[in-house]
């Protein structure tokens, strides 16, 4: 029996413009420093950046076999990533041995103490395709999608996961959680992480304490590429509504699982592919079919809108969409309301 997920009063959401992503992982580090510096989540990245095409993080996350849903959205058993080949252990290093080396002929050198099998950015810039005709890659930053129908919530036999009424943020109750990890298995995005020290699961909280005060999440506010927009789905003046609903250029990742993600992506354009002789073609390097495997069939139309609006500005015209994506005033990327909360002074 599935849980019914009551619709929240409002839904907070994020849009990421992949055409501005630098692959710098400042978002990842901002998030890491803020929330996941403890021993049990040393391996975990509530926010991570993947080079696509690639195996991602955890490895094979985009492989439907790992998801707790099939491609029609029906529930099936998902996979639980292991620490070495799935996530990549948070390697420790031998600085002390190296910096105080004895000068023996074969010196100890700085390297991971653990055997390295995978990591959060292991396939950095690997990409796909033959150089120089069709090689391609792009960066895909990922965080919890705070889904409208969260697979994690549906997976918890303890009812420890809830979706906040006021903003739709999906949270794992750290008191109720018993660390069973059905949520980890079920989530096709693998965005719940098991804290192997505290033996509970935790996940992106959309920087809830910041949101409560009208401050954008660290991953968004610290993004030097300025590619993230944060606001409420229902705010017609906010960036989310404009990009998702009005312009329809921002679309969710893996819509096929039917979970209703509330993180949206402006899909990537790419330079032209070359023909067999090396002549530029009219076709982008990233195959549309590949993008569709990630973003579904909405990706084609979204790219068309994007290119059409850009064509206007290339011809000297103006475009509200382009202006929005440019983000002349960066503060406008975030449209939030602070609501007071109690603090001990």
């Amino acid at each position, binding site marked *: 029996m599935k849980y019914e997920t009551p619709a929240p009063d409002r839904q907070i959401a994020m849009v990421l413009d992949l055409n501005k992503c630098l692959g710098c992982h*400042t978002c990842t580090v901002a998030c890491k420093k803020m929330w996941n510096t403890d021993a049990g989540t040393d391996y975990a990245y509530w926010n991570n950046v993947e080079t696509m095409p690639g195996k991602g993080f955890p490895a094979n996350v985009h492989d439907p076999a790992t998801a707790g849903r099939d491609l029609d959205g029906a529930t099936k058993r998902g996979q639980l990533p292991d620490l070495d080949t799935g996530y990549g252990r948070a390697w420790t290093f031998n600085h002390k041995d190296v910096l*105080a080396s004895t000068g023996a002929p074969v010196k100890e050198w700085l390297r*991971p103490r653990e055997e390295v099998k995978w990591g959060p950015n292991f396939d950095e810039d690997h990409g796909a395709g033959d150089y120089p005709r069709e090689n391609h890659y792009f960066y895909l930053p990922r965080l919890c999608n705070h889904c409208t129908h969260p697979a994690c919530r549906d997976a918890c036999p303890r009812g420890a996961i809830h979706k906040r009424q006021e903003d739709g943020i999906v949270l794992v109750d750290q008191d109720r959680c018993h660390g069973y990890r059905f949520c980890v298995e079920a989530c096709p995005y693998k965005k719940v992480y098991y804290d192997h020290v505290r033996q509970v699961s935790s996940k992106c909280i959309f920087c809830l304490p910041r949101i409560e005060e009208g401050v954008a999440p660290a991953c968004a506010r610290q993004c030097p590429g300025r*590619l993230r927009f944060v606001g409420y789905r229902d705010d017609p003046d906010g960036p989310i509504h404009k990009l998702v609903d009005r312009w329809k250029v921002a679309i969710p990742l893996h819509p096929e699982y039917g979970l209703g993600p509330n993180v949206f992506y402006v899909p990537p354009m790419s330079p032209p592919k070359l023909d067999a002789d090396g002549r530029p073609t009219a076709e982008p390097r990233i195959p549309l079919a590949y993008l569709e495997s990630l973003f579904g069939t909405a990706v084609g139309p979204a790219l068309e809108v994007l290119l059409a609006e850009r064509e206007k500005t290339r011809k000297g015209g103006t475009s509200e969409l382009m202006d929005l994506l440019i983000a002349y005033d960066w503060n406008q990327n975030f449209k939030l309301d602070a609501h007071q909360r109690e603090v001990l002074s």
Partner: protein
Amino acid sequence: MGEVSTSRRTFLKFAAAGVAAGAVGLPLYHYRFRSPEEAVRVGPRGTPPLGSWEDLYRQRWTWDTIAKGSHGWANCRSACAWDLYVKDGVVVREEQTATYEQSEPGVPDFNPRGCQKGACYTEVMYGPSRTSVPLKRVGPRGSGQWERIGWEQAISEIAEKCIAAANRWGTETLYQDLGPNFDFGPSTAGRFKFQFMAGGMFADNWAEIGDLNLGASMAMGFAHVGGSADEWFLSDYLVVWMMNPSVTQIPDAHFLYEARYKGSELVVIDPVYSATAVHADQWLPIAVGTDAALGLAVARHLLDVGAIDLPYVREQTDLPLLVRLDTGRFLRGEDLVEGGLETQLYMWHPQRNAAVEAPGCSGHEARSLVLDFEPPIDGQWLVRLKDGAEVGVVPVGAMLKEHLDPWTFDYTAQVTGLHVEQIRRFAEGWARAERPMVLSSWGSNRYMHSDLMNRAKILCLALKGALGRKGAGYQATGWVDLDGFANAMQMERPGIAGRLGALLGTIEPAQLFDAMLDIAMKRKTQNEVEREGEYFYTKNRLCTTDVVEVNFTAPGYLDALNREQEGMSPRPLAAYREESRANGWGPGVPANAPPKVFFSGGANLLRRNNLPQYLKAFVWDDMELIVDINPKFSFTGTQADYILPAAGWYEKAGIKYTMSYIPYVHYCDVAVPPLAESKDEFEIYWLLTREIERQAKAADLPVFEGCGRGSTDWKTLHQRYSNRGDLGQHDAEKVVREILDSSATKGVTLEQLKRDGIARFTATGTSVQASALHNPDWTGPGVLNTLTRFTEHKEPWPTWSGRITSFIDHPWFIEMREQFPVHKDSPKAGGDHPFQFVSCHARWSIHSSWRDTPMMLRLQRGEPQVWINPAEGTRLGIADYDYAELYNDYGSVRMRVKYSTAVRPGVAYYHHAWEPHQFPNHESYKWLIPGLVNPLHMAGGYQQIDHMMNRYQPGSAVQDTRLGIRPWTGQPTGAKPVATSRSDGEPT
């Protein structure tokens, strides 16, 4: 006295930084809110009641105080404002302040800036490589055997050894290089001030690290040019040419991608499908090292279709200057008239049908480029020389056309490996563009023939009239200068007397008077006087040289390079060096002995230098004292005699170095006191000068001759360092105030910076480093564009011809056939091996800072890696993540292989600056990189072509290195031993 403040200017190219003061709690200030009321609601942050598990999260976002900071000493080419969150005396995290304003309407703002490294400096600060106590070596150098000692002992022993070395070898054997890790605050001012006042030798390392744009110096007379990053947004044709902003300029890269949305076209030229290329409209996968050829094809096309800005070309470039057909050199005053000047050049006057003096060239009295006629850039005429002979002359433009003639799209396609259609599309884009802009990074200077590549790019821009036009031109890392920094490091007394003294130390009173007169009489522009002053100061006052020159003082080192470069130029490398020295073109320092005492501060010489095995064998091992003053255990430090723990970047007052990308000064406050026993450099040198002075007095040390550029009395060293006692041990903030007394930070106070972290510059600075921006009108508001001094004010460019230079008739350039930019194949350095070893500044580190930080290593693969195309891996039988052996004539190293489809087959690509101790045997790939020295970079005597700090000097090119790659199956790897029996006969 009023005179002094207006004429106070400095002639140093570098500036400083700083830090200070207890953390200031400004919880309301760190986010921008739409209204003050909203801001008030945020804090101060208390501790939420533990009413629920959610409060555990809320408690993580609390703090005691917030200090304003930046990563002061980081050698990253920009600056970002950060809030440093302090809780229980620990900086727990950092987040961008993000309070920059739009420069002008219609241009995106700079927020939030920052990068992943800046977002985790706390991981470095409290990380496993942090130094915390003074250490003294007890085993052999590099043995890793250390003893913990007290500061008093360290300072006393170091002082003693400095005195002994100075006594025996002269003060010039006290050696520091400039950095490149330094800030513009008191800690760097202290470091430089010590070196300056002790009569020690400063070695510039701009070129040695591969960052000096000699092509720009040749073409325009300065190497550092570029405005604010938001100027990129204004271009309609953005050409990223040998740069990867997504990786190396993370805070600024967004302007490129936003410009695309505004309708600009973005072209990326890179053998690697870089993180910038992925966002391009055109990616040109060019063959390695053939960029000049592409530039020549574009220039040819622009001339061919007439898509040039002819009035600009006539006025601002050397295309109308006349060249003799018989000699292939400029027509000069000395050719035409008795007593005529070598420096007077000519144009053809079509109405007068005669050669007329070109205004603005270095020999012409008119210091303006304004023309009252339209000199042709094509044609051929006869002129009569002073001896009565008639010779044919043509304008440079005509020669250029002929020179470019072979560079058809077809031929260029053969050289560059690009398709004709790609080249055509690119060239037509140039022709169409109204505001073409080329982004060319420091990394564009790492080929033997990088100068030709950059000259070719600049040629294209010059033809389009783009240099000096807002929203167009050449973006190659400009600087804003803080003249107060140069004062701070030179003054010997407090206040105005000290500043006056500093000024008179740089220029003699009579010269100063003459200079004022020259400006008043318009015989020289103010900028020219400044440059002359800089030249005089650098050549006669400052004990300055460059790192290549220092290395060459060791015959064994020069031998190695001479062997490596055999056949790469008409004469051997050593012959050019010999001629350069004979002509007085080189710095001539060190004159008496190779370096004996090395203070490493903000540098990692043994990590950075090419062929460190030779450096170790021929320079390092002969030094008597090596001190590393560093917050980090660097490889260089581990090979030193003493490691003195420097305060980290959040622990000392600092000013992030001031590049023009972000036209704000960035202050680094003291968020927490120096960790453990560390001290900031201002204090360390304060203590050292005090001890040297004490010992000098006790020994009644004679006054030293310095390095022949003024004497230095070490018995007053501390008196001078401390401004006669005005600066106490902990007075770094006083120095900050002195530094802020700069034309670029007019009215900016320390208090304001502690509150806001940033303040917009009010000018580009008055000393020469800054005048590279050459926009005398910019006062803060608006996008910072550059070079208007020439294009709007019509002052001559600081070149031989007074113009943007395409043609150089220096005899060495003629010998090398590089009068015009040409394409030359990348020479094979390190032997004839199948892979070209191409580097990029790192994504995950700023040079060796952050290089060994676990948080960063986990986002890589934990060990140094070389990137190759998967097809190459398959061919070689090396799987992704396998170890491979990289080998060439110098030996071999072991590295992990990383597959990337972005990498061109035949290229072995790496992000640089891994510490040698991250490799087996503590030998990095640097042991395989000879670092070619282009002989032309030792040329001189030709206005802009003359040894100068920050502008012109020999470097060390890494990108021409070749190597082979084979599977590693357990075989030993390592560099070949250096034969230390020194050969004779080579000039030194």
